[in-house]
């Protein structure tokens, strides 16, 4: 009886009830999640069902049209969801890095904050500078959404689940994302603001430079897999049971780093360096127009995660777990991991200067990419001599990892990056106080 009293007294009752309810909730989530995942294991049968359903009632053209529209709507709504959830995740995670709480007022855990932000932005007035070219000024915020959404097309979510399963998938993404360059340029130019112009010139210079290392790293992916189709690249990795990121770490690094330059993420966010050119090309945009630019940037960061996942991290495969968990969940999980890595980078690093970034692209990334590309081409030629890749591919992977590390060492020697070793540039302690004469008495720390 005393035990009962002890347990079920006022505040303690609530405490235990909370604990029990959390446990029950987690259990329900796991069970429901299992059944849900079994039900929605293969989403392609739903699209097949819709296609057949419409086909029975009309002609082929209409069925094709309807199912493609539904697929496109699915992609668009997914991107919209990514933008909403992504901004919340980014703010919360960065807040954790920065010993803050982050948005926690609107809705549970501040989950409704992105919606509140969107409503606030929509209510704001869209100012157009008096000397701006009004047509050109108002087109870019809308137009920049097109490449950002179109590039999601060929992403392979799961087997038989990619909206545009085309043979030129990599080239398609590359081409579509290159369309952002003129759009950003028009945004910066039409604002008639020096900051905006500087920002757009920086963007263009950076994108033009960094497209070369990106294309070189994508080329090495293409020559080893022998295809430009995303799904086939993922399947190649699973049939040869190696992640391309492990096989060619330098291509992964190049792609990741150069892409951060393309999508304006830290440490390469010089195009909208806040402390230098305030907001870069979108400085004159207000209200929802500015919000659209920021949303696209966020969406591109998640897109980069999806691209890295499918090209280098074996897509929807994860050591056999894909047989029990829906593959697209694994894919999204990997994408989120890359996105969190981007947030981590953003929370940690200062940014480069424009000339440093350019030097890095032209003096380091491009030559080393070319070396890497040739090495991989030779390896591919050797691999093609054999029926099955077998153990050889692991040997090459090991070789590539050591090559990657060796190239880093050699290049840092060539450009003497180690000139500024931190221990060599420590301050010293003054021996005695005075002017230039006393400078001679300065002794080093410890």
């Amino acid at each position, binding site marked *: 009886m005393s035990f009962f009293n002890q347990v079920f007294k006022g505040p303690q009752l609530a405490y235990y009830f909370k604990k029990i309810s959390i446990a029950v909730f987690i259990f329900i989530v796991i069970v429901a999640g299992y059944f849900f995942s079994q039900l929605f294991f293969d989403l392609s049968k739903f699209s097949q069902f819709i296609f057949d359903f419409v086909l029975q009632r009309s002609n082929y053209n209409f069925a094709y049209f309807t199912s493609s529209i539904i697929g496109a709507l699915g992609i668009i709504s997914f991107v919209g969801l990514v933008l909403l959830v992504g901004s919340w995740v980014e703010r919360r995670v960065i807040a954790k890095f920065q010993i803050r709480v982050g948005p926690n007022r609107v809705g549970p855990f501040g989950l409704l904050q992105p919606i509140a932000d969107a409503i606030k932005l929509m209510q704001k007035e869209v100012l157009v500078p008096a000397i701006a070219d009004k*047509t050109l000024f108002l087109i870019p915020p809308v137009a920049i959404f097109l490449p950002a959404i179109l590039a999601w097309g060929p992403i392979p979510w799961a087997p038989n689940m990619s909206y545009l399963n085309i043979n030129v998938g990599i080239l398609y993404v590359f081409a579509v994302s290159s369309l952002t360059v003129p759009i950003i340029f028009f945004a910066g130019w039409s604002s008639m603001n020096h900051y905006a112009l500087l920002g757009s010139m920086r963007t263009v210079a950076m994108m033009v430079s960094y497209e070369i290392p990106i294309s070189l790293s994508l080329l090495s992916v293409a020559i080893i897999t022998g295809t430009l189709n995303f799904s086939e690249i993922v399947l190649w990795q699973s049939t040869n049971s190696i992640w391309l990121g492990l096989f060619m770490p330098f291509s992964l690094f190049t792609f990741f780093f150069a892409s951060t330059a393309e999508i304006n993420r830290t440490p390469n966010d010089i195009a909208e360096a806040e402390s230098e050119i305030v907001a870069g090309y979108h400085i004159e945009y207000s209200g929802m127009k500015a919000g659209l630019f920021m949303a696209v940037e966020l969406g591109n960061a998640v897109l980069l995660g999806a691209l890295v996942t499918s090209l280098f991290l074996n897509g929807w495969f994860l050591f056999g777990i894909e047989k029990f968990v829906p593959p697209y969940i694994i894919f999204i999980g990997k994408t989120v991991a890359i996105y969190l890595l981007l947030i981590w980078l953003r929370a940690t690093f200062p940014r480069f200067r424009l000339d440093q970034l350019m030097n890095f692209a032209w003096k380091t990334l491009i030559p080393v990419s070319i070396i890497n590309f040739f090495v991989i081409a030779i390896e591919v030629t050797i691999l093609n001599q054999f029926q099955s890749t077998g153990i050889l591919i692991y040997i090459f992977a090991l070789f590539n990892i050591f090559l990657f590390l060796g190239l880093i060492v050699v290049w840092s020697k060539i450009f003497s990056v180690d000139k500024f070793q931190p221990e060599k540039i420590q301050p010293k302690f003054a021996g005695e106080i005075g002017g230039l004469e006393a400078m001679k008495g300065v002794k080093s720390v410890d």
Partner: protein
Amino acid sequence: MIELTAYNFSFIMMTLITILPALGIAFVNSLMRSLLLLILSFIGVAGLFVLLSADFIAIAQLLIYAGSISILLLFAVMLTPEISINNENSKYFLLASLGAILFLYLMILLITIFDLNQLTGNALNKLDFDNTIEQIGTLLLGKYIIAFELASVLLLFALIGAISIVRSSESDFDVKIKDSK
């Protein structure tokens, strides 16, 4: 009358996206706006290539024309200020329109002489979105290898040529800066 299938609808849309901006370039006064229209027109052409089941060429069109050549033109506009922002017609305006219309007339005459719609293609129509890239690659490195190599030489020459053309006056500019300091 044209039957409104998905293909025909797409064709009409892509034609409009190609032709209307191209016409706009001729009549828009701002050079920047005409550049925007030019990019739209390039995208329309890429759409037409997709309809012609040339997916690789369509992507290359997007990549090279809409993504790169437009950037070069933007740089050209940026490097030649104020005066270059307008896009006026020259004194040959009438001549140009006459020439264009005459050419169009001749071409349509030429096209309609033959019953071209009989042709439905014997080689590529079965190929719709099959792997054309491999075959193009084989052709480029096989049958047309000399042209391929010449193209690479051409690109190299263009690279060096462009640099040297601009470079020669760049050095004058450097001297000017030093003098002013």
